């Protein structure tokens, strides 16, 4: 997994690429998300367009970030959820928890 991040209008966009399955790569994503949260950057979009798949470790990172951000009065939104990840979110009922958008642009607009 590779990870890039950028900011626009006070929103941080995370763009992981590859597979989120646990191990060192997943720790990097988890640590980076929590770094931003600690810096009070509490508006976050995760662009999943280039994530081939994730497992329960990836879902765990999403949900723990979601709850931490929400506890800091922020919001975490998902963009470009692929069919494979959507089916996992559906199986685990997490689809009911996350706000998801068809594009990063739409997700960014939702913060305004």
């Amino acid at each position, binding site marked *: 997994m590779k990870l890039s991040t950028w900011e626009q209008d006070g929103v941080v966009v995370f763009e992981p690429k590859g597979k989120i399955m646990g191990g060192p790569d997943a720790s990097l994503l988890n640590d980076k998300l929590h770094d931003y949260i600690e810096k009070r950057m509490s508006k976050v979009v995760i662009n999943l367009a280039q994530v081939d798949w994730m497992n*329960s470790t990836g879902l765990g990172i999403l949900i723990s970030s979601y*709850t931490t951000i929400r506890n800091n009065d922020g919001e975490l939104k998902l963009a470009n959820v692929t069919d494979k990840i959507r089916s996992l979110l559906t199986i685990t009922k997490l689809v009911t928890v996350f706000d998801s958008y068809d594009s990063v642009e739409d997700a960014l607009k939702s913060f305004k």
Partner: protein
Amino acid sequence: MDLPVFLGEPNNMDKPTISGDTIKIPSTLDYLADVDMFVENLLRRYGIDESVIADIAISVSELVNNAVCHGNKSSPDKKVTVRVGREDSSVKISVADEGTGFDPDGIESPIADENLLKKVGRGIFIVKSLMDSIEFKLSDKGSLVIIKKAV
């Protein structure tokens, strides 16, 4: 005069070892990606649809995570062994650890309202959802989990 130090044979068990349809790794998540590459490459050679390969790969990653962390408790002396087999119209994969076993029936439902926001506890549930069957063979010398998926 300093005598040369005899180091013996290189200890290959610190790295993944591959033999035919089997990969064996030390108990660390650093090698999850190696297992994934090994399994996906074999499945691709069988000509299996990419979406099914992803479902199997997700399931294997869950079982290896469990075997390393819960089965072997990340003990450096213990190994996790993954074997990929092709039957007539299905793929069969076994994941073995050297831990003291666990109770698969003791896992709480991750989709219960009170568990929905928990960080962990979805692995086996996801495997059951994605695979056609999952079988646990547990003993005090290790756990063997066998999954099957029609292809």
